[in-house]
């Protein structure tokens, strides 16, 4: 087991907390921000699990024991690209949604509300 830097662990925990809190909001802008923060959190986590820092993993420069683990870095890079692309897509969706409605809150499901109101009406009728 590699020794972990407690500061980084706390930062990861903070990013996850803030990210999930923002994603639960009704405003789309906050959801997008939350998603970005959450993405940073998981990317940082990927870096943390690579173990302690080390030299560049190039054969022949340093002994293999002193090298950093390159695999989590490669995974973090892939994840960064994916989260970056999707943040852009989410922003485009939020903007498009704003042009339709003039605000950026997540709206209720109309069909769901309609079914709910039908059930309410029936219940009222039965009581009367």
């Amino acid at each position, binding site marked *: 087991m590699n020794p972990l830097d407690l500061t980084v662990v706390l930062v990861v925990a903070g990013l996850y907390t803030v990210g999930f809190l923002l994603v639960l909001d009704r405003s789309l802008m906050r959801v997008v921000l939350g998603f970005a923060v959450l993405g940073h959190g998981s990317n940082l986590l990927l870096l943390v*699990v690579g173990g302690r820092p080390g030299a560049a993993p190039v054969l022949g420069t340093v002994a293999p024991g002193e090298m950093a683990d390159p695999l989590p870095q490669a995974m973090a890079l892939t994840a960064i690209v*994916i989260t970056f692309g*999707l943040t852009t897509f989410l922003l485009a*969706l939020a903007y498009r*949604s704003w042009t339709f409605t003039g605000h950026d809150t*997540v709206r209720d499901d109309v069909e769901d509300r309609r079914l709910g109101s039908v059930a309410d009406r029936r219940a009222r009728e039965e009581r009367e």
Partner: protein
Amino acid sequence: MNVLLALPVVLPVLAAGVSLTLTRRPTAQRAIGVAVLLVVLADAIALLVSADRGGPLVTQAGGWPAPFGITLVADRLSALLLVVSTTVTTAVLVFAVGQGVAARSPSRSIPIFHPAYLTLVAGIDLAFLTGDLFNLFVAFELMLVSSYVLITLNGTARRLRAGMTYTISSLTSSLLFLTAIALVYAATGTVNLADLGRKVEGLPADLRAALALLLLVVFGIKAAMAPLHFWLPDSYPTAPAPITAVLAGLLTKVGVYAMLRTQTLLFPREDAWPVLLVAAMLTMLVGILGALAQDDINRMLSFILVSHIGFMVFGLALFDVRGLTGAILYVVHHITAQATVFLVSGLVVRRAGTPAMRKMGGLLRSTPVLAALFSVPALSLSGIPPLSGFVAKFALLRAAVATGAALPLAVAAVAVLTSLLTLLTLGRAWVRVFWSEPGEPRRSTVDSTPRPGTRVMLGAASALAGFGVLVAVLAGPLAALSGRAAADLVDRRPYLTAVLGAADGNP
């Protein structure tokens, strides 16, 4: 290096690139899409035959040996699901081509559809074939990003609202997946599934349970397992019919497949898993009770989809060969039946001009063909013999009885109840849509003259319904094949040996 293994992923991706350059030539796009999917189908059948005869096929991408490089594996389960999924995606693409032809104004045929659809297929294929946890994440992203584009196609206000819900919940599950990968790597130092299969056993039991639960939540969101299903009935119904069909038929099942693969390979168990049994029961009940209340035909079908995910989870939760056989049979049946029923409902909505069942009615007189076509997957979903649903449900119930324990038997009772309620829901829908008098005067803009495109759509839906019947006809050999696939999953040794070599494979 086995080219057959790379083909189902590489070919659709390349074709998507070519298709993107041909956005002004819809005919060429359609031809490329259908041709590529047919080649992949032939390839998948070849994979299934050779995996069934000679054990799992393995390719190490780039020639890197197993724990270091990315591994592609086709065992019986992957190859079988690859064949079924490619059959369904081909039929749905033909349906979509028909819909594109049938669309009255040229602006309604959307150039981005074909490239996005092909990358979706590549993502699904990669998810089935990959032998690497991080690569599975990439496959999911490939698949989901295409589905985000497809579900918000045309960008109307309704689709945006639904697409937003879908995108955000899927992204959250993707980030949780990434977290799970990081934690798995921190614990074991590898992401190769076969290598993990060996190394996870050495971890402390509580850490293993935490990782299993985290991966279960991740794939539970993708598979719409209760209580993680809330996004599904809200987002699928608004997309165009062929897209809903392929998302409903395949995407949730890819989640179920990932669950099957990771839970059996990484966290093998001796006996049934109570947590998963309760989740299965909950999924069945919540889904079907939701379906009973619906008026929108596509929403009703989405809720039925949720409830039937419970059956597959049930089969996995038993963690023995019989239960897994049932789960695999159910996945095969459900991919086909659910895609068919959504295609037919697309035709019904098109004919009636509304998805609200209270406004339909009397369609039996104008379209008897559709009424007959709707009843085939509907009866199959309810588990009426001799259709494929009965075969799968029977296998599951027999597996539950074979365990003899109280909880599996309780879930089996709920499964029977759910099947009866499915019959009630779909039967009532059939009566409301096809039989009863029209509730409100229909809009006169819906013309009933058959166009060539409509015939193509009808043909594709009928072909898929026919494939569903074929699944039932071939029930014997298919059940035997699923049994062998399930035995491989429980045994684990064929998979480990194939990937890691004979010396390292034996745990």
